């Protein structure tokens, strides 16, 4: 059943994307694998886009989602008539011979990497961000049966296109279909890289680039999870390449493809607004006609508007909460100036490791590759060594062909990547290197093409292949170590509970809440990692990004706390872990104790869990325990239930 759902989704997405490309008249202008990759990327975006109106209408029953997806199957015949059936479409693939002794090991390597991805996908989900929102929000929406607005900045009241595709998989085939869908959608960028590379490079180079992309440390970390970046990497590649081609052909069709991809990126993450703007600027600077620009603007808005409209409808701010103070907020929106300041002051130091200066703009890629600041998280979720290894060789290739550079669409794709990096560095909310993942596949292809051109002019004595081989060896070894935690439980026949207890922080708390509380008990939960795993209704109480229940360290009014709990129908408050009490996590504990003292709550009851996990891959968990306190809110009116404002 799970395999059938997965196949159905893949075919529906490819069919829908092929129909889009056929409607744009681009089928015959793309290479064989390029067409398949673009069809998957655009179809994937279309699936997420279509899920929004379905959810808004409350049509989230499995049969309703299946019937909608089935429409995409009608586009499947177009796959045969498009680039797939026309190997020379859009220019012949690079014709240089590739020796079998390089092709065969690369195919084996790719198969091995994908097999390890498969083992990961068969395990229960354990990535913290995915459990906190990427998988949790789709699950909550399916339970509710309709679109939800959760007033939580950055991770919930934000663009959710990729998460809506997860909702489709979850509804049709359950959790395993969802994790397998994450795996397949993570592979999409490998196919796109291979398709793009085949236009310019021999088969062995193209396979090596696909393998290098799929095994990037950031891909290992995020590819098989609900993280957005591996999916938006597909959109960025299509948007950048299509923008580049639109600059040469003045083509409305390429501009429309770029707009759809850029729009889908913007509908997946706020930072997608950066490439959407950059592609428009490149088009405006390079084309001589208004038609491609108008087409780009209209299609981009159509692809991207949904989640910005949804935010605006609920709060008055399309990019909630970034325009707080500049736009009138809807009555009932809980966001406040104090919360905005607390979020900025708390999260910014965590997210920004180095100054946003011109020097660091150039030093950041080197620093993040060779010795990253902890805020970059580049040690284990970095971008691999290949880009830096190839960069000087690529500069040499660019110099050799300098007179023809501006006529190359790939050059303009690289300009899109460079400008996106520039904007991200100076305007982006975070310096975590994995947020740059969408830019890397295009960069790798462009660098490899330029390095290959240099190698064709000046024999480099195999230095380029040495760089590729080193990057692949290091990354494959990294994937092997990463996969150990999935392979060993699979071979040992371990159960779901033991896997989650070993890989998810505070899983014992989730078990306790699921077993010891009634099915309708609503829980205020301050730890995010177990949102998806708690089967009871919860209020996700992240103190940094929401003020529906104010949990900032400054919050000291138990009466207001009780009023906010009552509005959310909270029955149980979880306070903890005790190790977080020194860092601002003590607020639920302090306010709950005040409720107990006022006779408005009872408790605490203690739940003991294993300590948090420093690294899921490398372990390092200590034998110390973490402690949570459970407070039950009285349903009877109490001393603090006085009518008051605010």
């Amino acid at each position, binding site marked *: 059943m799970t395999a059938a759902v997965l196949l159905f989704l893949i075919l529906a997405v490819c069919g829908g994307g092929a129909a889009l490309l056929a409607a744009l008249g681009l089928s015959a202008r793309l290479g064989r694998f390029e067409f398949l990759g673009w069809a998957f990327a655009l179809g994937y975006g279309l699936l997420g886009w279509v899920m929004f109106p379905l959810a808004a209408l409350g049509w989230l029953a499995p049969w309703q989602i299946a019937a909608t997806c089935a429409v995409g199957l009608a586009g499947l015949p177009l796959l045969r008539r498009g680039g797939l059936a026309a190997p020379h479409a859009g220019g012949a693939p690079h014709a240089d011979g590739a020796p079998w002794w390089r092709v065969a090991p690369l195919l084996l390597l790719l198969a091995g990497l994908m097999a390890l991805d498969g083992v990961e996908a068969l395990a229960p989900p354990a990535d913290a961000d995915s459990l906190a929102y990427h998988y949790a929000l789709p699950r909550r929406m399916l339970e509710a049966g309709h679109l939800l607005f959760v007033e939580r900045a950055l991770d919930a009241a934000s663009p959710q296109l990729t998460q809506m595709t997860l909702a489709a998989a979850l509804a049709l085939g359950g959790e395993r279909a969802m994790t397998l869908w994450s795996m397949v959608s993570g592979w999409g960028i490998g196919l796109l890289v291979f398709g793009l590379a085949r236009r310019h490079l021999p088969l062995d180079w193209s396979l090596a680039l696909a393998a290098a992309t799929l095994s990037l440390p950031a891909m290992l970390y995020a590819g098989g999870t609900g993280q957005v970046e591996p999916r938006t990497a597909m959109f960025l590649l299509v948007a950048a390449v299509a923008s580049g081609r639109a600059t040469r052909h003045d083509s409305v069709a390429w501009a429309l493809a770029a707009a759809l991809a850029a729009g889908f990126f913007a509908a997946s993450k706020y930072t997608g607004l950066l490439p959407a703007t950059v592609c428009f600027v490149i088009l405006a600077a390079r084309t001589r006609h208004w038609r491609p620009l108008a087409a780009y603007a209209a299609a981009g808005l159509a692809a991207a508007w949904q989640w910005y409209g949804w935010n605006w409808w609920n709060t008055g701010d399309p990019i909630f909460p970034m325009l707080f103070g500049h736009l009138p907020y809807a009555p009932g929106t809980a966001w406040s100036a104090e919360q905005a300041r607390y979020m900025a002051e708390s999260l910014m130091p965590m997210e920004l490791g180095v100054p946003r200066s011109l020097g660091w703009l150039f030093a950041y890629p080197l620093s993040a590759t060779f010795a990253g600041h902890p805020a970059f998280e580049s040690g284990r979720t970095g971008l691999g060594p290949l880009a*830096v*290894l190839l960069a*000087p060789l690529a500069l040499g290739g660019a110099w050799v062909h300098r007179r023809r550079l501006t006529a190359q669409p790939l050059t303009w794709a690289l300009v899109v990547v460079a400008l996106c990096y520039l904007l991200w560095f100076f305007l982006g909310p975070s310096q975590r290197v994995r947020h740059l993942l969408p830019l890397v596949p295009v960069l790798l292809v462009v660098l490899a093409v330029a390095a290959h051109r240099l190698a064709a002019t*000046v024999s480099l004595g195999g230095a380029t292949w040495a760089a590729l081989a080193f990057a692949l060896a*290091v990354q494959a070894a990294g994937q092997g170590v990463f996969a150990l935690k999935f392979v060993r439980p699979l071979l040992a026949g371990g159960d779901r509970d033991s896997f989650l207890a070993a890989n998810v922080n505070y899983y014992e708390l989730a078990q306790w809440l699921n077993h010891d509380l009634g099915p309708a008990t609503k829980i205020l939960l301050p730890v995010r990692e177990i949102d998806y795993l708690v089967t009871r209704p919860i209020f996700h109480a992240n103190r940094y990004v929401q003020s529906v229940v104010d949990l900032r360290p400054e919050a000291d009014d138990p009466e207001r706390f009780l009023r906010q709990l009552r509005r959310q129908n909270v029955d149980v408050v979880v306070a903890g872990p005790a190790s977080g009490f020194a860092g601002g996590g003590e607020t639920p504990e302090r306010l709950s104790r005040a409720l107990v003292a006022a006779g408005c709550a009872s408790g605490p009851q203690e739940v003991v869990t294993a300590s948090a996990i420093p690294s899921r891959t490398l372990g390092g968990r200590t034998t110390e325990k973490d402690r949570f306190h459970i407070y039950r809110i009285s349903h009877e009116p109490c001393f603090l239930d006085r009518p008051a404002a605010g």
Partner: protein
Amino acid sequence: MKHRLAPLIIMAAWAWVALAALAYVHQFAGLAPTVMALLR
């Protein structure tokens, strides 16, 4: 095509690849005992 700077370019390319590869691996040297323990 034969380029007059070819020998220099070949040497520079190999030197860069070797040095960058060493520098990349070096940052993970501290993890070696943990990884070895995981593999055992």
